[in-house]
């Protein structure tokens, strides 16, 4: 019972802070604390398990390394995944235990659809922001510059509350369902999850090579790969 109320408190805390982290992703600052390599260790730190947070961060970072926002196109939301995955894995190991690569991989395959959902949410907010642009026009007509300033910031509030709420709902649902779903998994599936975990960096690097448009990139990639790999084999 005490453990359960601790998790609820942690969910509230992560949702409040997660809203700020999500704002960094597109709305303001963009100093990149919303990248997995920073977000996940931060969540890990809050939950008392930095190492799992770092592991999750590195894997998700590599997975998203080739996903680039170009112009108005926004890739699936890596920030919400970076918040959910370490949280679910850490709670799981705290209460029941479980191999960390397996829990991390399972949390990841469960939360990827959320990344797409969060991207939809992002464009919904940007549609809603149109109303603020119109309201600002009206305030200019009325000569109220304070009103204009307020409208300029209204989107930030919208982003913050929408993301905090989404994170809160997904954490509650995840915390309730994850241990149950995980306990249903047969041993061969757990082994499969662990093997998937090792493949993730390869997927990420492949997508990076696809998205960096460099002449002869594959040639140089394999050249440096072969060189370094042979060095490792010799020594």
């Amino acid at each position, binding site marked *: 019972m005490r453990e359960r109320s601790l998790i609820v408190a942690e969910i509230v805390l992560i949702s409040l802070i997660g809203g700020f982290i999500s704002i960094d992703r597109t709305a303001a600052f963009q100093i990149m604390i919303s990248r997995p390599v920073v977000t996940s260790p931060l969540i890990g730190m809050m939950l008392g398990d930095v190492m799992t947070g770092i592991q999750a961060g590195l894997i998700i970072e590599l997975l998203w390394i080739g996903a*680039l926002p170009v112009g108005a196109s926004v890739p699936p939301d890596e920030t919400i995944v970076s918040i959910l995955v370490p949280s679910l894995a850490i709670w799981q190991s705290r209460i029941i235990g479980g191999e960390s690569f397996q829990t991390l991989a399972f949390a990841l395959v469960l939360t990827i659809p959320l990344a797409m959902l969060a991207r939809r949410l992002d464009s919904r907010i940007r549609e809603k922001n149109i109303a603020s642009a119109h309201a600002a026009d009206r305030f200019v007509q009325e000569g109220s510059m304070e009103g204009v300033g307020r409208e300029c910031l209204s989107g930030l509030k919208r982003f913050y509350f929408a993301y905090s709420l989404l994170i809160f709902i997904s954490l509650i649902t995840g915390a309730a369902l994850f241990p149950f779903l995980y306990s249903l998994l047969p041993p061969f599936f757990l082994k499969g999850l662990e093997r998937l975990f090792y493949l993730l960096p*390869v997927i990420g690097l492949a997508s990076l090579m696809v998205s960096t448009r460099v002449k002869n990139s594959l040639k140089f990639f394999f050249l440096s790969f072969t060189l370094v790999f042979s060095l490792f084999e010799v020594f």
Partner: protein
Amino acid sequence: MLRSFLIQGTWNFERMQNLGFCYALLPALTHLYGKDEKIRGPVKRHLEFFNTHPYMAAPVIGAAVKMEEDVARGKMNGEDVNTFKVGVMGSYGAIGDSFFWSTLKPFASLIAVFSSLMDQVLSPFIFLILYNISHFRLRIEGFYLGYNEGIGVIDGMKRFNFPNMMKKIKALTVISSGVLLAVYVSIKPETGFGQYGLIGALVAVVLFGLYYRALKWGVTPQILIYASLAVTAGLSAFV
């Protein structure tokens, strides 16, 4: 200048960064016109459509402040400010996207992953520092450059030398990606590719090739993850 950090705060599909830009200029405009009726025109002007890369907005904001001062003194026409903004936003957007999003961000990620091989706790800090040096330099130096030069900022921005740096960083990214994969299949824990030696490395290379092809055909990484899980789980039922 600090307000430039909020440029995308109320990004909208109709006029994009217009509110963010106007918000950044409001203090300057109030300073120039006070509570006077005359402020309405300039504020309205900066609520027009605007969109560029969020960091590149800093020099544009700086230059716009300078130009608005000239407008207030009657040395410049208000419409010229908007002509300038519309003139630079497209190319600045393209430069910013390709330098920060497509070049510096993946490179900083790679270096962070490398650093985690030595010290895991350091990797987030290395990422943030490496990335934000250029970011903050552009925000701060760019803003003052814009404010000092006004419309001359277009020439002044060449000092950042983005195209040249981009080439170098991209080449480094490709090479270090190869190195990273090699290190990844060579480290020897009980699990992962490392335990299989040369065969593990060959499997990794073949998989890399398959993923590369699939992504080129437009398969999304999400689908690749689920497809891989189906294969690894299926395989694990037997081996």
